[in-house]
C-alpha cells in the first residue's frame, strides 16, 4: 500500500512539519513500508483476544484529591519566549 503525496502532506500538516519535496518522497516510501508491515499484522485473527492496553496487572493507582502548591508564576513562565503580564504570549489564534 503506497501513500499518496497528498496523504504525506496531510500527515506532515497534522504534525506541524514542513517537508521539502525530496523529504516528501523519502517519507512516503518509509511510511508506506510501515503501513505494509501493519497490514501484515492485521492479517492475524484476533477476534477473541482482548487488546493489550497494559502489561501491568490491571489495578488502578489513584491519587487522593489533595492539592499541593503549584509552581510560582515566574517559574512557569521562565522558558516562555514572550511572557506578557503573567501570560504566555503567542501568535494570534483565530477561533
Amino acid at each position: 500500500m503506497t501513500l499518496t503525496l497528498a496523504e504525506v502532506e496531510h500527515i506532515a500538516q497534522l504534525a506541524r512539519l514542513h517537508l521539502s519535496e525530496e523529504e516528501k518522497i523519502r517519507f512516503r516510501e518509509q511510511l508506506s513500508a510501515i503501513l505494509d508491515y501493519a497490514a501484515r499484522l492485521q492479517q492475524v485473527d484476533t477476534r477473541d483476544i482482548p487488546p493489550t492496553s497494559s502489561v501491568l496487572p490491571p489495578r488502578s493507582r489513584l491519587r487522593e484529591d489533595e492539592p499541593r502548591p503549584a509552581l510560582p508564576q515566574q517559574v512557569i513562565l521562565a522558558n516562555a519566549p514572550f511572557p506578557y503580564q503573567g501570560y504566555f504570549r503567542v501568535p494570534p489564534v483565530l477561533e
Partner: protein
Amino acid sequence: MPYETVIGLEVHAELQTRSKMFCACPVVDSTRAEPNTAVCPVCAGMPGTLPVVNRKAVELALRVALALECEIAPLSLFARKNYFYPDLPKGYQISQYEYPLAQRGVLRIETARGEKTVRIRRVHLEEDTGKLIHMQDPDGQSFSLVDLNRAGVPLLEIVSEPDMHSLEEVRAYATTLRAILRRVGANSGDMEKGVIRFEANVSLRPSGSQTLGTRVEIKNLNSFRAMERAIAYEIERQTDLLQNGQAVQQETLGWDEAAQVTVSQRSKEEAHDYRYFPEPDLPPLVIEPEWIEQVRANLPELPQAMKKRFIHNYGLSAGEAVLLSEEEAVARYFEACLEQAGDSIAPRTIALWITGEIFGWLNQSGEKFENLRVPPAGLVDLLRLTAKGIINLNTAKLVLNEMLASGKPAHAIIEERGLIQLDDAGQIADIVAKVLAEFPREVASYHQGKTTVFNWLLGQVMRQTAGRASPAVARAELERQLAGSKGN
C-alpha cells in the same frame, strides 16, 4: 416538505475537585485567579512528567454515570487525542475513546407532551484545556495570551444519542442534566464561570424518515441561551437549504455571539484527525464492583424523584414541587420544617409559606437562601402560633418579614410589639360598637343594601386593634351588631 429536527448534545462539565485530574495543582476559579498560578510541570506538559488519576474525579464521574443509569465499565482506558492548539500544552488531551468509563444510560425529561427518555450514549473522563485571550497591540497587531490554570482540570463528557427533536426538548435535557450534576455534587452549575459547556449535533430529515440527515456540529456553546439560539439558527438555515433543493454540508461550526449566526470553523475540520491511541502513561482504570455499589448507595435522591415524591406524598402542585426540589438547600429546609412540624401543620401550608412569603422576601431583599436567618424550627414555631390562633394570618406575615430581616424568633417579636391576637369576644364587641357609633352614615348605606361597606367596617375594626383582632371573631361580632342595628 415538512422536516423533523434531530439533535444530539455533548455536555462538558468540570468536576468539582480540589486538585486537577492528573496532578496535584489546585483547581482555581479560572475567571478570577491570577493567570498561570495553578500550574506545575505535569499540567504544563513538561517532558518526563507522569499523570496520576485523581480518585475524587473518578468518584464524581461514577456518581453522575450512575445517576444517569449507565453501565459502568469494570475496565476503561485513557487515550491521547492529538491536536495542536496553544491552550493544550502537551499537544494532546488525555481523554477516553474506545473504552469509556460508562455507557448506555438514560435521562428522563419533562415536556409539554409528557415524560420522555433521552438515551445517553457514553460518559467519559478527560482533562480541560487552558484558556486563550485574544488581544490587539496599540499598533493593531493581533496576538493571543495563554493561561494554563484551567489546563488539566477534570472534565466529564456526557454524550446523548440524537434523540431530541425540538428546542424545548434540548432545553429540558440541559436543565435536567445540570440539576443532576449539581445534586450529586459533581458540578456547581455556575454557567457564568463556564463550568458547563455544550456542543450540539443538528440535522434535519423528512418527517417520518428513519435515516439521519447530514449533520453539523456546533462547538463552544457556553450558555443555555447561546445553545438555544445556535440550534434555532441552524434549524432555520438547514430548512432553507433543503427547501431550496440544496444540500447541508457536514461541517464544524462555531457560534458568533455578536452576529448571532453560526460560522464555519475550517481550522478545526483539519484537526478532526485526532489519531487517538491508548495513553501509555496511565494503566487501565479499574472500577471494582464494591466501589460502584458504594457510590450507588450514597447517591442522593435526584431532583426529579424528589419532585414526584413531594407531589405524591405532600399534595403539592407541580409548580410548588419544582420550586422546593430544584435547589438542594431549599429541599433540605422544607423537609426539616416537615420534620419539626410533625402532624401539627399541613405540608402544603409549609410549602406555601416557603415559596410565597420566604421566596418573596428573598426576591425583594436580594438575599441568598443559603443565608436565611430563620431556621426551620423558627418558621414552624410561627406557623404553630398562627394555627393556635395566637396571632392572625396577616400578623404572621408581618412577623415573618421581621424574623427574616432581624433573625429574631417569632415569640420575641410578638411580645415586643404586642401582636397577640385579640379574640376576647367582649373586648371586640366594645370596639365594634364604637366603630358603628363613629360611622352612622356607612351603617345606614349598608342597611340600604350597599353590602360592600361591610368589609370597610371590618377594616375599621381591625385598624382599631392594630390588626390584632381575630378576623373570625370580629366578622361574627360585626354581623351580629349590624343585624341588631337594622331598623334603628
